[in-house]
């Protein structure tokens, strides 16, 4: 299948680690141009070296999310330097900074980070022939996971926002979809730290996953690439759950 991603311009944050990192690699392998931002400049440099073979352009921005104006301005500049924006993946999160229990941080990063990005990038996305936004949510939004956390509630709000946004942006040819991964573990990731320091918790969760293992970044990357790509041109407003069967409720 040709996802028709060749030459498409992708903007994504939190790029140096975890799922975002894998998503960048997936798009890069499909020949996309990528504008990526992160607090971790060394991480961006490493990633950039790794994806050089894909052939597309890669623009890096060392960036810490602080003032909303500065964030919008950064995204606007990045899209301009990239020569446009076809795909935006909202993947920055309070969970990237041990902020899952913090209401202010979760709202600031997971919610407003989406709202401000949409505002800044909409003019660029509008000019694209196959514009698409992916909002990264989580199974924790719709199924109780350990404890009530700010992250969980805000990720639920993000699903509503994303779905309703898909209706309002559709006339502009911009698709909006959500991806909700379950627990994902990767080298140096939070779950691997849990494996190190609270092994019973890790084992307990793994035991509840019908497909028998924690998720890995490459379980999520290809799905995001597909949903974002022209191959999914008629899909909008959906929530793709990628969890190995972890959540039990029936998804209508």
């Amino acid at each position, binding site marked *: 299948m040709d996802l028709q991603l060749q030459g498409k311009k992708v903007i994504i944050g939190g790029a*140096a*680690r975890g799922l975002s990192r894998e998503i960048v690699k997936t798009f890069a392998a499909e020949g996309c141009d990528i504008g990526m931002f992160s*607090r*971790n400049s*060394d*991480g961006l440099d490493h990633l950039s070296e790794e994806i050089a073979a894909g052939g597309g352009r890669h623009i890096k921005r060392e960036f810490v999310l602080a003032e909303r104006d500065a964030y919008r301005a950064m995204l606007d500049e990045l899209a301009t330097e990239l020569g446009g924006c076809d795909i935006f993946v909202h993947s920055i999160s*309070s969970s*990237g*900074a*041990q*902020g899952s*229990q*913090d209401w*202010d*941080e979760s709202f600031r990063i997971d919610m407003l980070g989406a709202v401000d990005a949409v505002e800044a990038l909409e003019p660029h996305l509008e000019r694209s022939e196959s514009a698409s936004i992916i909002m990264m949510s989580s199974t924790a939004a719709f199924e109780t996971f350990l404890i009530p956390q700010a992250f969980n509630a805000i990720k639920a709000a993000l699903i509503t926002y994303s779905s309703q946004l898909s209706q309002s942006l559709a006339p502009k040819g911009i698709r909006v979809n959500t991806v909700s991964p379950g627990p994902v573990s*990767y*080298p*140096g*990731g*939070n779950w*691997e*730290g*849990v*494996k*190190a*320091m*609270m*092994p019973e918790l890790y*084992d307990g969760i793994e035991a509840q996953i019908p497909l028998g293992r924690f998720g890995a970044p490459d379980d999520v990357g290809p799905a995001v690439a597909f949903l974002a790509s022209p191959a999914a041109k008629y899909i909008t407003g959906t929530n793709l759950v990628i969890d190995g069967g972890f959540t039990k409720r029936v998804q209508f």
Partner: protein
Amino acid sequence: MATSAKPRYSEIRFNDRPIKNVLSDPEAFVLEPGEITADYEQKSATRLEALYPNIADYRIVSTDRFVGEAGKAAEEKKLWNKVWLLAGFSSDLKEKGDWFRFDVGPQSLIVARSAVDEVSAFYNVCKHRGNELVQGDFGKGFDCFTCIVHSWRYNLKGKNIRVTDRESFSDEVLSEDLDLTPVHVREWNGFIFINMAQNPMPFEEYYRGLLPMLASYPTSEMYVVKDLEVEIPANWKTMFSVFNEAYHAHATHPQTKPMLDDHFYQYDFYPHGHNRNLFALGVVSERWPDTRYVNIGLAFMLEEAGLKVSKYKGDARGVRRAIQKAKRENMPFGIAYDGFTDNQITDDWNPSLFPNVTFNMHPEGVLVMRFRPHPTDPEKGYWDNIVLSRRLADGKRPPAYMGVDDSADVTGETRPARERVDVHSAPSSELLLQDLDNMVTFHRGMKSDGLKGKIVFSEQERRIQQFLAELDLYLYDKKANPTPS
């Protein structure tokens, strides 16, 4: 596995990234001091080569040192009765008449508080027919020691105060020295040391390199909250070597990689066989795949220091300094950190006291480990795990890695009994169980013909090289001081 340390770490054991700039001369590395520093934090004035011109000989050594007879007879004649040894703690000798027993190999000693500011130590043997005088580990409120066999009696300084039926002894016998034979004893900053030599090297000279650093920890205010003796099927030197290097941390203790720098730490070597490592805690090992993310271990340390993790701005690289600052400001353990350097607040300061003791020192408490030879079997030894704690705020406990039982009293009101266990039932922290497993498998492995009698050491294992070099000075009569007893 010898123990219950579970093999659950297989994935993270080997998820290592290679260290970019491996130290080819680890001894040269300096752990950067914080703003508040002290002289005792600086690097030692002497490199290992200056202390032992032949130190290169100790990179490849014979397994005979560790298996079989392993030098037992020579050590009993030339080592144990020459050196200062950690015998116990002042907190166990609070009142006059309190005593404890200290055994090393076949020798047994009694250490007693004989007067308010005085400690006496003597061999635990009645001068009549050589009966072992005390069999227990501790005693309180004694005013004398009475031998169970013929009721001979000695006062707290070891002086014979009763020969029962004295008239039935010949003058010849009575003119023998019938007092308990004393040994040198020194109480220092809450520790009790003994030396069985007649004219030992002065205490201040022996520990010269370490005393300034040791003096900065208020160990005279600490008391024992865990006392565990594990009998290990390995020579005491094998056991000791497990704790004299951190090269093993990434593989033996992979769960420490998210919060301990296991390669870039400071090595300092001092005269008379002592040394130390200073380990930065609250730092992600370069081997861990993500050195920027504030992982769950670092998050826990921040919270413990009284910092709200989500409010911490910055990545993993700033965590250690943030903890140092926060602990000084918040005093989360109920103790102040005046008198400590910034690095002492987070880091594990780990001296080795030649020949057989290590300390893992924190302002809140100290893990003492001591390795003693078995009286008859050189292929066995005793591993003493003792935790000293200060009086901390309610609900606060010494660092978890020290293995203090959750239910143990850490207030100092009750002194825990000494537990004696073997390898199969050792209760302890996961970390210490991982080391225990290594002691067992090292001992078995070193008997293998496949080694052709030799093992090799890296420069990260210089502390072991120093230990063996210093040991040889005693065994080959090359140690200038002390004089033979």
